[in-house]
């Protein structure tokens, strides 16, 4: 198979769009169902996230007056494209894309694109609520990216290479554990869950930065979020869970690990209130910073 085909397959089929979208919906459903059950509710039916997106696809697209049509419509597309491309880099079992030197850097960059798209979506919307949400999103990303990036970079430091395969092959040690904790610290804010659901605090700013989005563009943002959930959980699994020599077993282990991580952050989300932006920022710079420092120190003393 030539390189172009393998990239196309990776982006469109596995681990890209065709599998990631249903998987993301499954994971979102799992989270919603778990939240509901923890709160003593019934919860949504299995196909609810799918229904949500399908319903949005059938709705009218309203573009606010005075907003550039091109940017407004391009943002959700760019967001979906970036997360899908990022997922295609993750060396899940069976991923046809060869590992390239430095793909970790590309991955980290691509993972920032959806955040950037959300910030821009809020800013261009001309809605005060969207703009406040965008501001919050931007500031929060400064906070949670400290532990998030440090967790990955520490692993790269240990591996001595910015290549995903090398990260996977690092012999197991203390750094894995510390970096995993640091990564998990950043995860709730990355996924916009309580107590860090600050940029999408509906009781403060009505909605998230997509407040002016409707119809298919909003559906694309929702899809992007679903794929991002898959990306984050699978990235965690691939980097921090030890691999076995059997790819199929690996796949099952990774998926189970992803679900477990989601269960954990959901449990946290249901037992907490939403923090203020300054409190979240302080949390990430103090505790996230501390975790980062310890992780980095561990890579050095090893």
């Amino acid at each position, binding site marked *: 198979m030539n390189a172009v085909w393998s990239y196309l397959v990776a982006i469109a089929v596995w681990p890209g769009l065709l599998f990631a979208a249903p998987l993301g919906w499954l994971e979102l459903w799992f989270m919603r169902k778990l939240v*509901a*059950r*923890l709160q*003593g509710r*019934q919860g949504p039916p299995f196909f609810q996230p799918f229904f949500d997106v399908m319903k949005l696809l059938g709705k009218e697209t309203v573009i606010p007056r005075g907003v550039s049509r091109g940017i407004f419509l391009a943002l959700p597309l760019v967001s979906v494209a970036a997360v899908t491309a990022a997922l295609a880099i993750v060396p899940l079992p069976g991923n046809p894309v060869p590992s390239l030197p430095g793909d970790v850097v590309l991955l980290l960059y691509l993972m920032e694109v959806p955040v950037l798209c959300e910030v821009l979506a809020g800013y261009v919307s001309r809605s005060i609520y969207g703009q406040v949400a965008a501001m919050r999103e931007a500031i929060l990303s400064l906070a949670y990216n400290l532990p998030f990036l440090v967790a990955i970079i520490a692993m790269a430091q240990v591996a001595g290479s910015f290549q995903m395969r090398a990260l996977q092959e690092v012999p197991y040690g203390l750094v894995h554990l510390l970096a995993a904790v640091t990564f998990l610290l950043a995860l709730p804010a990355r996924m916009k869950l309580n107590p860090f659901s600050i940029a999408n605090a509906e009781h403060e700013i009505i909605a998230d930065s997509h407040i002016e989005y409707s119809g298919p563009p909003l559906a694309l943002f929702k899809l992007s979020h679903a794929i991002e959930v898959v990306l984050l959980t699978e990235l965690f699994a691939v980097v921090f869970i030890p691999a076995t020599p059997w790819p199929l077993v690996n796949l099952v282990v990774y998926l189970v690990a992803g679900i477990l991580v989601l269960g954990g952050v959901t449990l946290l989300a249901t*037992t907490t209130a939403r923090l203020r932006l300054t409190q979240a920022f302080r949390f990430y710079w103090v505790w996230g910073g501390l975790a980062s420092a310890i992780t980095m120190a561990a890579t050095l003393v090893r």
Partner: protein
Amino acid sequence: MAMLKTILGNLLRPSRTRAPADMPVVPPTYRGALTHDAGRCTACGTCAFVCAPKAIHFTQDPGISVSWHFFIGQCSFCGLCEQNCPTRAIHLRADVPGSTNSAGGDGLRLESVIHLQPCTRCGAAHVPLPAATMDALWAAGADEAERGYCPDCRRWAASARLRTAFTPDGAVAEGGRHDR
């Protein structure tokens, strides 16, 4: 930690969500839709008087019948009609759901016809007393002819009896025919 304990407990308990099928237990005091018993109604107008949103009104076919009307869309289910009805003709029934109106003005509309009877003495159309009440009132010895009297004639008959009791020599003045 109280929250963690609670939510983990919730996980083990059945869900609290109620589906339309599992209706909550309706207490016997529940104020559902109105029912009206035309056989007990005396068309006194108290229910319409106490009804703040004016969900109850009367129409009449002069000399033949009086109709009691109710529209659930205006009802506020305060229950004052039931509370104030002197003959207990109105009930808010627990087994009849209350919320069946729509903005379009449809929904439960009740009409209950109270047939009038001409008075056997003066001929005025009136609401006859419920049969059970009549049996209780004219149980023994009373003048059977009074059964068909209108309220005014009943009052006249009663006062005539009273007068007879005071002046037993029988000089009952004729007349007393009230104008109606």
